[in-house]
């Protein structure tokens, strides 16, 4: 995330994003994902097509086992398709090896998990700084960027707190700061409000909306919560490995 993106104000940035002709951020074509458990074949996704435009905020809903988390993992480059293609920001993820996908994730994807997954031995600031350790930035620049990300999520005064000293909502906000600190094009969120009460969930959803509208982040969110899905501009319903609507 650039410093300018924080300091120049939401309106300008939002207008810039909305004024641009929107291209496809994610293009999924004929996507199959098959797992093998012993000798049993398990087709989780069967020939799925999906297009997500740059700067959109889209939700994936569906019952357990519908394949929404598998789809999210494939979009985030954590897994490779069995068949078909996934292009994210113009890159064919299926063609990348494990090391190249890891590097691609570090540069292009921010992750938000249901259970926050912060490192308990690190402070909030250090947790946010973690992805920047893979860059060539100096220690001072890393710290500065982490502080900016914490400011975006409203937790600059909690920089020195350890995760156990924070509430669930605060932990998730730190996790969001960690997700945006490298200024990724894409943010994937797997049940980001699943472990939060209604008020904290509302705070997190507002923050995600803000990242989408003010900073132009493309967000793909898996959720079971219809109220959370309503905050997205588009909701895709998955069932038995296919998109129903």
């Amino acid at each position, binding site marked *: 995330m650039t410093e300018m993106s924080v300091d120049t104000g939401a309106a300008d940035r939002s207008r810039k994003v909305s004024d641009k002709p929107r291209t496809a951020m994610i293009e999924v074509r004929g996507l199959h994902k098959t797992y093998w458990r012993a000798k049993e074949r398990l087709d989780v996704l069967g020939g799925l097509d999906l297009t997500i435009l740059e700067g959109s905020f889209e939700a994936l809903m569906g019952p357990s086992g519908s394949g929404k988390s598998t789809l999210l*993992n494939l979009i*985030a480059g*954590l*897994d490779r398709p069995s068949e078909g293609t996934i292009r994210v920001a113009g890159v064919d993820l299926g063609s990348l090896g*494990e*090391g190249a996908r*890891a*590097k691609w*994730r*570090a*540069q292009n994807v921010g*992750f938000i*998990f*249901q*259970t926050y*997954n912060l*490192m*308990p*031995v*690190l402070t909030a600031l*250090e947790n946010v*700084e*973690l*992805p920047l*350790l*893979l860059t060539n930035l100096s*220690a001072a620049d*890393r710290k500065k960027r982490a502080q900016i990300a914490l400011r975006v999520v409203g937790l600059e005064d909690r920089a020195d707190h350890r995760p156990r000293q924070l509430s669930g909502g605060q932990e998730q906000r730190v996790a969001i700061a*960690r997700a945006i600190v490298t200024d990724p094009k894409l943010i994937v969120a797997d049940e980001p409000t699943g472990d939060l009460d209604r008020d904290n969930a509302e705070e997190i959803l507002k923050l995600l909306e803000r990242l989408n509208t003010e900073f132009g982040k493309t967000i793909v969110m898996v959720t079971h919560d219809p109220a959370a899905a309503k905050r997205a501009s588009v909701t895709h319903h998955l069932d038995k490995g296919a998109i129903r609507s």
Partner: protein
Amino acid sequence: MRLSALGVRNVLRNRARTVLTILGVAVAIVAFMALRTVLTSWTEAVNHAAKDRIATRHKITFVMTLPKRYVDDVRSTPGVVKATFSNWFGGQNPKNENEFFATIAVEPQSFLEVFDEIQVPADQRESWLQNRRGAVVGDVLAKKFGWKVGDRVTLKGTIYPGNWEFDISGIYTATRRSVDRSTFWFHWDYLNESVDARSKDQIGWIAARIDKPEAAAQIAKRIDTHFDEKDIQTLSMSERALNTSFLGMFTTVLKAMDVVSIVILLIMMLILGNTIAMGVRERTNEYGVLRAIGFLPKHIALFVVGEAITIGALGGLVGILLSYPLVENGIGRWLEENMGGFFPYFRIADGTTVAAALLSLGLGALAAAIPAYRASKLDVIDALRRIG
């Protein structure tokens, strides 16, 4: 923050477990260093033996005696500069019969010339030479029994029965590490005049100074050849070879100690490996998160190995710091006082400390090899699924 900081912080995560593991490693290092010091000290007598001294004993065994007249023959052998002789007395302090120390009858004048590393103050030396009942004792032995110059002491003879009275004429120190500072030296004449006719004029061994250390083997052969045609044959060898042959009797014990010291390190490695494996299992989900946000398998492996090396290094450091007081001042002092013949100088060798430090680090890394490999090979999605 640096990448290494995460590894170091993980070390402190479960403090009780980390402290116990560090103590486990430290105890293993202390045991390793103690055993290695036994081995190095044992060979100290060989390493520091005089190069210009040869010993002559009965060809069959050192338990059997030689006629005293052989000393003159040795003294007249070409290459021999000086010679002296001794007898094992086998005395005990009646007040402390379980405390072993060497008691040896010598000819004082020639003994002090041949063994010039024995240091006795001039006045005490003179006193000893003048007093047939006089004895000089090592400073370690004197301290142990509280003996002082001028004391009259009684020893109980085991080879030569009876109570034997001696005057402590002097207390010796030594300039060479191979010298046992717990020995009781006294006049051979005093012994000889008191034994029965069968044991008279018999000596245990002859020690000779030679002019050329490099000719030790030739001179030893010359001596033995001279006695080949006599009624009793001899076996001569350099002091170093003599000490080596003496140590050779304990080869099996030394090898066993060597093996035990290696086994101790293997146990240390297993303790460390178990701790690291537990930590890796507990942090599987965190490694999944790190992999998700772009860290590579090599980074994960480095975290695990770094943690193991840190614990190994801390355990090694604590172990080394504990070893000096425990091994040198505890076991070492006791061994020098009670088994000075075997361990005249029981000190931790520099090489042992370096080996302990390197092995703590090396075995720490080795202990982490399997957990590190498994952690680096974790499937990201499987690891993330453990999040709950």
